[in-house]
């Protein structure tokens, strides 16, 4: 049986337009064989979740440069709970201070990557998260 390609929705939320990191991650994931749906900039949480559900995605990946990570990650997690969505993993990357990495994980984010995270590490951790 051929295993289905894992699908990841990548999105920037709110107004933060810094997309350098997320575009590089998108390319690395595609090169690795993932199906990536890049939702671009200026999304609200509802839209990202709608796309993930519609596409039966395995994970949502969000990137933040400007400090909006807690605000938006909490809203994503809350909305998923409210809508009884299970099985979609939540991944966050970006400029995130250590104390917020812990806070994000307590909130229910599955993986957090910060600047300088190596490609191999990112790919391994996502693979194991989605296995």
């Amino acid at each position, binding site marked *: 049986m051929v295993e289905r390609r894992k699908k990841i929705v990548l999105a920037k939320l709110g107004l933060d337009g810094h997309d350098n990191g997320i*575009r*590089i991650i998108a390319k690395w994931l595609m090169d690795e064989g993932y199906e990536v749906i890049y939702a671009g900039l*200026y999304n609200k949480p509802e839209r990202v979740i709608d796309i993930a559900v519609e596409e039966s995605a395995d994970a949502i990946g969000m990137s933040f*440069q400007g400090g909006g990570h807690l*605000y938006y990650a909490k809203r994503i997690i809350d909305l998923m709970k409210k809508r009884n969505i299970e099985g979609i993993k939540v991944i966050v990357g970006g400029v995130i*201070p*250590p104390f917020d990495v812990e806070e994000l994980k307590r909130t229910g984010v599955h993986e957090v990557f910060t*600047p*300088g995270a190596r*490609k191999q590490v990112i790919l391994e951790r996502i693979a194991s998260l989605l296995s």
Partner: protein
Amino acid sequence: MREEIERITNYRSQSGIEYKEYYDSSDWKGSLSPPGEYPYTRGIHRDMYRGRLWTRRQQSGFGTPKESNRRIKYLLSIGQTGINMDVDVATKTGLDADYPLAQGDVGLQGTSMSTYEDMKELYDGIPIDKVSSTLIIQPPYSVVTMAQYLLMAEERGIPWDRLTGTIMNCAITQYVGPTLQSNMTFFPFDLSIKIGYDLMEYLIEQVPRWNIININAYNMRETGIDAVQEAAFSMSLAADYIKGLLERGYDVDRFAPRIAFFSCAHMDLFEEVAKLRAMRRVWARMLKERFKAKNSKSLTWRTAVQTAALPLTAREPLNNIVRATIETLAAVLGGVQSIHTTGYDEAYSLPTEESHRLSVRTQQIIAYESKVANSADPLGGSYLVESLTDEIEEKIWELMKVIEEKGGFINCYKEGWVEDKINEARYRYAEAIENNDITVVGVNRFEGGDEEATINIFRHEEDMQRKRIEYVKEYKRKRNQEPVKRALENVYRLTRKGADMNMVGPIMEAVRAGATMQEICDAMRRACNFQIPK
């Protein structure tokens, strides 16, 4: 076990030029005119930093205007000599704090600024006739911010001809990327360029010492493009703006002295110095030969520099102090006019007060202790630097020619060519780190140090966003509504009327009447039936 001989990974410059084993008179036989003389390779003044040190201009802005005012005053108190005010991303997209999509980003990446009151609070107690300001915002939003600033001067009784500073005012390069999506989502693109010209015209006429536009090469460079691309992209863009102003009937010597640049200083020290020297030459030649400028002030290329943040790391953050010092040195050796030294905590958050201070101190130590600022263009005549300067200049002209043949930079940008180049570059840069082609100490070489940051990290004030959202709502509720309505109606009507109407006056009247940033932008959006995401 025997160690291998330790070698540097490769000998290429950051833009891919192969450094030679050594350089001698076979590499460069030229001669140079002195600093302060055409084509200004060696600097725009003969006495350079003896006549005037570069301005220490750290970007700052976060949270409420009041908090940012405190930080600006702190920076001035420790020897910062210019202000570099950054508004938050909501303000930069023409949205108020209470707009739903804006709420999560209020005050995070800059100061939340909606009202004229906000401007007065931001500059409270700061002598704007004595200290220059750079206002980091693009059109059409730049018009609102500039109007707030000018009205503040008026209220303080300061004539506009005593104001010095710069408005970024470039519709293309200001957003990070610059991606098409970010420039097309919140305002009609062509109209934003047009309104940018409106503001330039207004400033040419009314505020004689103010820089009318800042060509932002830095934000493009930060995606991963190289030194040659940075220079060629920004010079080509400047050429477009010059053409635009000529078409509006201005003599080149009337406005060229008031176009400034915002460039990057990266880690490759000699290449960066060569790039800055080459850019001065390209500008001088372009203005003289192509645009027939006669005034020597039109021929001198002036730039602010921010040190590159892309090479800075989250791992072992103190290493970034060394990186930023090298980059700052490159800017000084390159003869620039103002510097922002990026903080070592850049990979974590906005700079703390401590980090901001260190940035200012880095520049002061270079200025006062290292002696490198004592003579103009200290690397001039170096076989290596001169040969690199020549080679980079040649590559800049080549790339500018390609862009020109494609209809100019703005056209290349609209057609997606620029974004393609930027994407190529950002992947290439990331891959180069992955396969160790670029060495980043502590990340892909000499790893295994202390991974955890032991530095202090900036935190926003508790409840800052809620307070700002409340403030804007309250402000709109309490003011005298009638004049606001009338002024906005006027902005709407004149925007609909179209092309030959300069919008600065009507926008200034709306600010004076008490309209907010978003209300003014919404009036113009409405006039074009332009929808923005909610």
